[in-house]
């Protein structure tokens, strides 16, 4: 269920990147061919960027594609390496908590104050804030699940998850 939700968020991010490309292309073409400017392109692209970047975070975490320096610990015993991978995830859990707290506060503020972007369409500010909050929260939950699962694997003597990490790239 959780993985399906992560995949759904990843698909939304794909749609956001496609929309980004189309938005910018149509904006350039309409400007250069018809001398017409699309309304609020910059604001819409900025809002789409939040979806494109934050929504895949949980899937990227699951794929262990966050960059880390492996060289210095690569010669350690597998068990020690496994604990280091777990502690890296724990660092992530703590690092995201202030972002989620502040993201929640900011989202609540934009909803209650009815904040909007100045422009032709007066678009509301809350969708980008909501997407940020959802993306960060799901990534945080994924990290938490991985910490638990990885500890279980270590206790069972299985260290496969170390090699599935892409590490430094």
């Amino acid at each position, binding site marked *: 269920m959780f993985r399906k939700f992560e995949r759904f968020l*990843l*698909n939304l*991010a*794909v749609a956001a*990147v*496609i929309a*980004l*490309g*189309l*938005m*910018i*292309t149509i*904006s*350039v*073409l309409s400007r250069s061919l018809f001398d017409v400017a699309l309304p609020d392109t*910059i604001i819409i*692209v*900025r*809002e*789409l*960027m*939040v979806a*494109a*970047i*934050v*929504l*895949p*975070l949980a*899937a*990227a975490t699951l*794929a262990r*594609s*966050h*960059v*880390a*320096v492996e*060289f*210095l*610990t690569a010669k350690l015993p597998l068990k020690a*390496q496994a604990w*280091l991978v777990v*502690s*890296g995830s724990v*660092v*992530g859990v*703590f*690092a*995201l908590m*202030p*972002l989620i*707290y*502040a*993201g929640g*506060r*900011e989202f609540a503020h934009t909803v209650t104050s009815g904040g909007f972007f100045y422009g032709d369409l007066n678009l509301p500010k809350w969708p*980008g804030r909501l997407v*940020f909050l959802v993306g960060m929260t799901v990534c945080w939950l994924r990290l938490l699940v991985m910490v638990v699962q990885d500890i279980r694997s270590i206790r069972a003597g299985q260290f496969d998850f170390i090699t599935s990490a892409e*590490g*430094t*790239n």
Partner: protein
Amino acid sequence: MDASLIGLIAFAAVLGLLALRAPIGFTLAGVATVATFFIFAFRSGSFAPERAIRATTSMVYSNSFDLIHSYDLSMIPLFIALGHIAYKADITTRIYYAARVWLSAVPGGVAMASVVGCGGFSAITGSSIACASTMGRICTPEMLRMGYDNRLATASVAAGGTLGSLIPPSVLFIIYGIFTETSINRLFVAGILPGLLTLAGFLLVIFLWVKHDPAAAPVDPGHISYGERFRAAAMAWPAFVLFLVIIGGIYGGIFTATEAAGVCLSAAALIGLAQRKLSLKDIWDAIRDTCLQTSSIFLIAAGAKIFVAFVALTGVAPAIVDVVTQAELSVFWLMFAIAVIYLMLGMFLDPIGIMVLTLPLVVPLVETYGLDLIWFGVVVIKLLEIGLITPPVGLNVFVIANVVGKEAPIDRIFAGIARFLTVDVIVLILIMSFPVISLLLPNSMW
């Protein structure tokens, strides 16, 4: 507690956690958050945590959200997607095949074609590692099959892959532009001549290598007619069009880099669909890979942005500037010291990690000395490029080693790399000594 002391402890904590394999983005964000909290909490002299929580979380949130909520930075996912789609549509690989056909009769021709192919690939995508990985899968096995010396077959592609950082569009230039607040358009254009100089140097290395040792690169005996050659060159037209749109558009002031990325992505997808090289599923898959890659890059960038804001609070950067200016270090020794630090870090860390860790401290120094940040950006990217092929952690070398397996052990690849590194160092010295190489084109832009 003194802010600069907190700053020094935070730097030590970051280095310690990175050494212990903690992901770079989480480490920078986590350490900066905790340290910022302490700075705010001790600001009034006594410990006041309630006020510090609100100030810290606001600072952390605004830095990360504002970074992501950016129009200009949408060029990163767009350029990465362009690379994936151009590869799936065979647009990038056709540059290599065209060069391969034209250089088939030249000794070392396939190795030269690989380097030219890497240059062409770099002109459409922005990642050195993607370049080495893609070209390595195509060119290296072919050279090994033809009986090329395994050092030449692997090192030429590992070194050629580094062109991805210097020849625009380059993800490293974009990240440098964010953190130094310099024009990404000008950075892109500044990378062209140094990139071409490096490419020419690599071709010269192959030429001299094969001249000295003809057995290293047996010549393909098959004859290829001029008709076939022109056909192969004509097949590479989409790559030339995309390159022209990116560079011509930016240099001529027609597009911003972001607009060039969007237009080229749409064009590449349309070309691929029209030529039946791409299906809609291919496009979706390519963009899904893009999303995963981009979110990892932005996690580091967001962590670094928070860390930079924290460094500004500590006063560590001005303190370093004071120390260096009091030592009356000349520009030569300053640049020499920076180069040595980057080369040493390049042996152990990945390029984005090095950049985000060092720029908050180095850029104020460079600005104090009145040096041009565009030129300095080219120097930094060149240094990072060299780090990609220096032992023990030459990432491009490991990428190629994964591709070829047992046919070329790591030590053989590094042995081949040594000759290309010589050229890299010469080009670096030229770029550092003659800033005009980097600044000629950006200073003549529209």
